[in-house]
C-alpha cells in the first residue's frame, strides 16, 4: 500500500483535539485560506454581524412578527404561518417563538442554512421562523451587495470556528453559517443541493419570472409545504453522509440476475412520452431505465437521480398513486417532467415513471400494472421484500447490510465508491456503505462520524494539496481514507487497531467488495428502450412538454 508523500499519521496525543480544528494542523491554515478570501477581514465582518444582531432584538425584532400577524388576520390567510404551527413540529420550531437571533438555543445550532431573495426577503431558514430573522437576513444582503458594488462576489467568510458560505443563484441568495468541520466547498455543495431542491419544485425559469415581475415577492407562498423536504435534505448530510459527499447514489444490494431481469422488465414496459422508469427502496436504487428518444444524448446527472430518489421517499407518496410535476435541475432547470409515483403491492418498493406529457397519468398507471404483473411472474417481490427487511432501523425500511458481512473484525463502517467502471457507465456514479450500527446508532455519534468523513474528504480533495491516503487516529476511532484510480474509500475502524492491522482490514474489505460487486453495484446499467411515440395531442403542445418550454 503505497501512500502519497503527505500521509499524515497523527499520534494518539493529537487525537484529544478532535472537537476543534486541530486535525489539519500539520498544514496549518490550509482549510482556512486556500482559494477564498483571507480569513482576517472575514473575522471582522462576522463580528459586526453578531454584534448588530445582538444589539437589536428588543428594538427591531419584536415588532416585526407582530406586524406580520396583523396582516394575517385582516388580509391574507397566510398559508405559511398556518402551516408552520402544525407541521413545523419540535424540530423546526426549536426556539419556541423561533429563530430570534438572541436566542441561545438558536445560536447554538451547528449549522444554519438560509435562503433569501435578492431584495433580502426571507424564504427559508433551517431553524427558527424566518419572520424573526428579517434583520439577520438584511445583514447578509448588505454584505453581499457591498462586495458586489465593488464588482466582486463574496464567496466565504472565515471567523474563528465559523464558516459563512454565500451562493448566489439567479435572484436567490443561499447562505450557510457553520461550525462543522465541513470545508467551504462541501458547504457550497450543500447549498447547491438546496437550490436544486427549490428549482425542482418551481423551475429556475419561474423563479426568475416571479422576481422579475415583483422584486419583493414572498416566495414562501409557493414553497409552502416544501420546507420539510429541505429540512430532510440537510439532516441527511449529518445522519447518513455519502450521497452528497461522494456525488453518487446508493444501490439496493441485489443478485445480479434479478437486477438485470428487473432492468429488462422496465425497458419492456413503456408508455408514450415515458422518459425514465426507476425502482427504489428507501431512497436507494434498485434499477432504472432511460428511454432513448427523450434522454438519449445526456444520461441523467447523479445529482438529479439522487434528487428523485429523495423525492419519491417523501411521506406524501406513501398512499395512492401520485401524479406530480418535477423539474430535474441538471437536465433542464426550466422545464417540468410529470412523475407517476406509487408503492408497489403495498411494499416499500417504489416505482417512479417520469414522462413529458402532463395528461399521461392513465398511460403511466397502465404501465405500472404491466410492470407489477411482470414482477410477480419474476418472483421479484419476495426477493425485494427480503432485501428490504434487513435494517436496524425498521422505520426507514431501507435495504442495507451489516458491516459484519465483510468479516473483517475491527471494521466499523465504510464508504466505498468504485471509479473503475467502464466508460459508458460513468454517468451512474454509485457508492456502497453498510448500515450504521453501534456505536453509531445515536444522533450525536453519527454526527461525529459524518464530521470525520467530511474532514477526510476535504483533505483528500484539497485543491492545493490533494492527498491520496490518510491514516487518522481520532479519539474514539481510527480512520483510513484512500483514493486511487480504481476507487475512493473511507473506513472507520476500532480505535485500538494498529496501522498494520488497519491495512489488513482494508485489504480484506477490498477483496470482499470485489467479490460482491455484482450485488452491490449496478455494473451494467440497462440500455435504452424505445417507447411508442407520444400521441399527436401532446406533440402539438410543446409548451406542455417539460423538455421544450415553448418557442
Amino acid at each position: 500500500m503505497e501512500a502519497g508523500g503527505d500521509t499524515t499519521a497523527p499520534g494518539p496525543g493529537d487525537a484529544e483535539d478532535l472537537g476543534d480544528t486541530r486535525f489539519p494542523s500539520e498544514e496549518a491554515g490550509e482549510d482556512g485560506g486556500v482559494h477564498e478570501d483571507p480569513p482576517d477581514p472575514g473575522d471582522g465582518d462576522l463580528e459586526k454581524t453578531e454584534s448588530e444582531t445582538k444589539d437589536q432584538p428588543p428594538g427591531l425584532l419584536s415588532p416585526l412578527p407582530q406586524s406580520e400577524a396583523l396582516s394575517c388576520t385582516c388580509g391574507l390567510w397566510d398559508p405559511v404561518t398556518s402551516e408552520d404551527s402544525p407541521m413545523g413540529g419540535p424540530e423546526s420550531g426549536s426556539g419556541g417563538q423561533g429563530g430570534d437571533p438572541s436566542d441561545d438555543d438558536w445560536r447554538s445550532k451547528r449549522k444554519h442554512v438560509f435562503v433569501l431573495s435578492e431584495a433580502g426577503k426571507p424564504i427559508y431558514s433551517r431553524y427558527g421562523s424566518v419572520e424573526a430573522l428579517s434583520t439577520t437576513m438584511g445583514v447578509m444582503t448588505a454584505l453581499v451587495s457591498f462586495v458586489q458594488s465593488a464588482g466582486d462576489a463574496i464567496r466565504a467568510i472565515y471567523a474563528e470556528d465559523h464558516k459563512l458560505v454565500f451562493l448566489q443563484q439567479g435572484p436567490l441568495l443561499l447562505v450557510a453559517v457553520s461550525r462543522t468541520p465541513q470545508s467551504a466547498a462541501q458547504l457550497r455543495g450543500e447549498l447547491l443541493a438546496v437550490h436544486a431542491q427549490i428549482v425542482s419544485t418551481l423551475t429556475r425559469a419561474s423563479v426568475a419570472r416571479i422576481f422579475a415581475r415583483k422584486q419583493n415577492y414572498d416566495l414562501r407562498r409557493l414553497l409552502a409545504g416544501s420546507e420539510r423536504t429541505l429540512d430532510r435534505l440537510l439532516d441527511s448530510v449529518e445522519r447518513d453522509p455519502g450521497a452528497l459527499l461522494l456525488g453518487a447514489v446508493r444501490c439496493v444490494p441485489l443478485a445480479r440476475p434479478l437486477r438485470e431481469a428487473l432492468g429488462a422488465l422496465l425497458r419492456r414496459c413503456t408508455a408514450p412520452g415515458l422518459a425514465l422508469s426507476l425502482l427504489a427502496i428507501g431512497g436507494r436504487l434498485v434499477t432504472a431505465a432511460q428511454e432513448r428518444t427523450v434522454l438519449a444524448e445526456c444520461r441523467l446527472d447523479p445529482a438529479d437521480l439522487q434528487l428523485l430518489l429523495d423525492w419519491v421517499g417523501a411521506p406524501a407518496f406513501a398512499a395512492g398513486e401520485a401524479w406530480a410535476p418535477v423539474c430535474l435541475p441538471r437536465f433542464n432547470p426550466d422545464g417540468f417532467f410529470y412523475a407517476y409515483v406509487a408503492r408497489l403491492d403495498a411494499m416499500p418498493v417504489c416505482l417512479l415513471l417520469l414522462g413529458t406529457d402532463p395528461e399521461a397519468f392513465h398511460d403511466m398507471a397502465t404501465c405500472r400494472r404491466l410492470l407489477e404483473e411482470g414482477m410477480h411472474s419474476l418472483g421479484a417481490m419476495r426477493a425485494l421484500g427480503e432485501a428490504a427487511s434487513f435494517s436496524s432501523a425498521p422505520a426507514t425500511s431501507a435495504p442495507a447490510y451489516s458491516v459484519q458481512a465483510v468479516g473483517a473484525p475491527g471494521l466499523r463502517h465504510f464508504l466505498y465508491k468504485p471509479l473503475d467502471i467502464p466508460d459508458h457507465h460513468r454517468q451512474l456514479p454509485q457508492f456502497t456503505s453498510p448500515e450504521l450500527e453501534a456505536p453509531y446508532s445515536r444522533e450525536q455519534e453519527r454526527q461525529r462520524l459524518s464530521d470525520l468523513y467530511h474532514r477526510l474528504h476535504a483533505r483528500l480533495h484539497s485543491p492545493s494539496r490533494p492527498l491520496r491516503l490518510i491514516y487518522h487516529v481520532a479519539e474514539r476511532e481510527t480512520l483510513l481514507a484512500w483514493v486511487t484510480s480504481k476507487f475512493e474509500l473511507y473506513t472507520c475502524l476500532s480505535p485500538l487497531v494498529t496501522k498494520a492491522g488497519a491495512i489488513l482490514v482494508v485489504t480484506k474489505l477490498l477483496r470482499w467488495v470485489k467479490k460482491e460487486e455484482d450485488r452491490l453495484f449496478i455494473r451494467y446499467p440497462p440500455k435504452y428502450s424505445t417507447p411508442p411515440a407520444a400521441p399527436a395531442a401532446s406533440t402539438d403542445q410543446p409548451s406542455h412538454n417539460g423538455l421544450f418550454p415553448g418557442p
Partner: protein
Amino acid sequence: MRKPDGKIVLLGDMNVGKTSLLQRYMERRFPDTVSTVGGAFYLKQWRSYNISIWDTAGREQFHGLGSMYCRGAAAVILTYDVNHPQSLLELEDRFLGLTDTASTDCLFAIVGNKVDLVEAGAAESQEKEGRGPGTAGGGGLPKVPKPVQPEDAAALYNKILKYKMLDEKDVPAAEQMCFETSAKTGYNVDLLFETLFDMVVPVILRQRAQGPPQTVDIGSCKTPRRTRSGCCA
C-alpha cells in the same frame, strides 16, 4: 387496468384536511399530516362502478395542475376549514376557476372540515365566559378567528350555480350539498362520500348514454370551451 367510470376531485386550500378526509374514509384512520405533492389517485369500488378520487395538493405551487385533475370530473368536493374563513374565500377565488374543465353536469359539494376544533374552541370559551352551548363557537376566543357558518357555505354554493349558469331546480339543493365534517373524529365523513357516490352514479349513466369519454381525451377539450363561452355570454 380497470377504467374508472367516474371522477371525483377534492379541491381546497392547503391544510384544510383534504387528504385526511380521504384517508379517514378509505383507511378508517387519521394519520399525521403530510403535505400532498401534486395529486394522488385512488380507486373506490361503489356498487358495480369504479369511482376514481383525486386528492389534490392545496399548495399554490401545484395550482397549474388543478384543471388537469378536474378534467371531466363528475363531482368536485370543495373543502375549507371551518376555523379559517379565508379558506372558504379561497375556494371562490382560486379553485372555482379550475372546475371549468369538469363535466358540464358536474356536481359540487362544499365541505367545512375540522368541526371538532370548533367544538373544542366553543367548549373552552364556554368554560371561560360561562355561557351556554348552542352558539356553535359563535363568540369564540379572541385568538380563534370566528368560524365559518353553514350559511356562508350555502351562499357559496348558490354563487357556484350562478357561475355555472345552472338552474337551481336541476341540481341538488344547497342543504344537500353542504357538509360539515371532521376527519379527526370521522363525523359526517362516510355520509359525505357515500351521498356523493350515490349522486355520481346517475351522472355516470348519463355520460355513458351520451358517449363522450370522461377521461383524458382530445375530444374532452371541447367541453370546457363550451362552458367558458357559456359563462361569458
